[in-house]
């Protein structure tokens, strides 16, 4: 369901998207809004489930994961359980950080991390190619991240 928000909510969420670590007082100041109003609006957005929380962002490079690959998979759909089974198997892979399903040429995408190319090759052979119901698989190797804010154009 779509929640109706006004310009003040939008301003709040924009500021908070730009810097989630802001305190309510700092946020109120940036939005030129009384603190109590700011707090009440945040409560309302949280209560409605629009503002779900905050997640820490991990820099995997710092932990020694230098390879990131986007695996684009077409699923063999003759078996009605194929999707559920490949999704369940993908969830068991410790090196997978994102799983998306699509309508389009690609059915499924896995974002995979590896320490280096040797490690990637090992994961790919032992754990990816052995996933059930794969019809086609294609890899896009990440060279650089130019934008990754994932923020909404409010």
């Amino acid at each position, binding site marked *: 369901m779509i*929640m109706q928000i006004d310009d003040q909510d939008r301003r709040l969420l924009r500021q908070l998207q730009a810097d989630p670590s802001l305190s309510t007082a700092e946020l109120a100041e940036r939005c030129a809004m009384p603190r109590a109003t700011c707090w009440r609006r945040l409560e309302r957005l949280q209560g409605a489930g629009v503002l*779900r929380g*905050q997640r*820490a962002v*991990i820099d995997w490079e710092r932990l020694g994961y230098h390879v990131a690959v986007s695996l684009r998979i077409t699923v063999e759909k003759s078996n009605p359980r194929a999707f559920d089974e490949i999704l369940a198997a993908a969830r068991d892979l*410790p090196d997978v950080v994102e*799983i998306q*399903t699509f309508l389009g040429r690609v059915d499924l995408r896995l974002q995979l991390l590896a320490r280096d190319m040797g490690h990637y090759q090992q994961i790919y052979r032992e754990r990816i190619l052995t996933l059930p119901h794969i019809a086609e698989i294609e890899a896009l190797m990440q060279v650089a991240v130019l*934008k*990754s804010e994932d923020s909404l154009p409010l």
Partner: protein
Amino acid sequence: MIEIDDIDRAILRALVADATLNAGALGRQLGLSQSAAWRRVQRLKSEGVIAGRRLDLDAEALGFGVTVFLGIKLATRGRTSLEDFERAITAIPEVQAVHHVLGRYDYRLRVVARDLPDFERVLRRRIMTLPAVGEVESNVMLSEELRPGPLDGI
């Protein structure tokens, strides 16, 4: 690269789920003293493992009902066209993420829109009009799961 142990991994998992947890709450959750939890979080931050925070918003409830992943192949080569393309594409507010990749496509994009007609407008007026853009593939996202990745006790 820095070495982390199982307690650090547990801290990262907890902060990825909820970045607003303070040292006291983290400590209680993991059986650590508040000061021990604080020291570990500070180290993970100062070493750049925790790169920041991200707001978790319900895009659909805010009226952004469509997320599309795009693969883009450039039609032209040369450094100037590359830089122009990167500058223009990252400036589009609906484009949430831009990754430079190797493989069938040159760039991987995540685009958010209100609905399919809105996506079509962004695609035709903002993206396809960029001179460097060649082949484009769109896959409409149906579902998404974010996984903890290689943080499970190894």
